[in-house]
């Protein structure tokens, strides 16, 4: 799954550590999501979507779309 997390985070001027703090996960988890090495669970994806005020499908996309 691809995502726009890195761009959204950059728009707000947050570091990975800032975002990890707000989501209650480790910085490594944020990095793994951004680099596409890890797909977050649905609850975490909802927390990310809520934090950025966007629907999940605006942040996460299936590969190839």
């Amino acid at each position, binding site marked *: 799954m691809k995502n726009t997390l890195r761009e959204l985070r950059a728009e707000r001027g947050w570091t990975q*550590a800032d975002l990890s703090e707000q989501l209650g996960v480790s910085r490594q988890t944020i990095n793994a999501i951004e680099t596409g090495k890890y797909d977050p669970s649905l609850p975490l994806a909802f927390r990310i979507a809520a934090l950025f005020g966007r629907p999940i499908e605006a942040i996460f996309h299936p590969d190839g779309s």
Partner: protein
Amino acid sequence: MTPESTVQAGRRATMRRFRYGFIIATLAYVGLVHLSDFVLDANPGASWRYAIAVLPAVPVAVCVVALVPYYHHLLDELQQRIQLEAIAFAFLGALIIAFVYGLLELAGLPGIAWKWAWVLMVALWVIGDWLARRRRL
């Protein structure tokens, strides 16, 4: 990059402590296995030999009990996934090794005591942890 928060730093320190504790417990296990071997050899007919024989299980039990809160409360979902993959690797690796070696024993290789299963599984767990981190991080 902002400095790591107190919560994250505390979580990282706890994880480090757990890992050191795990290594120490494994070394204690190996030491207690040798100690119990020695005591049992010296006292073959003692009534308390069963208690001495299971003494090495104490650090193993401590590790297993400590693992549950470590897994549920200290790890986030990616870390839990990594540990789950590492444990699965250790379980399946130990199963295959034990099975294949058991067959080789039929061909004449010397038998290996069950007491070394813990050491084998921990070694495979460490390898599985390394592999999962390489894949995920």
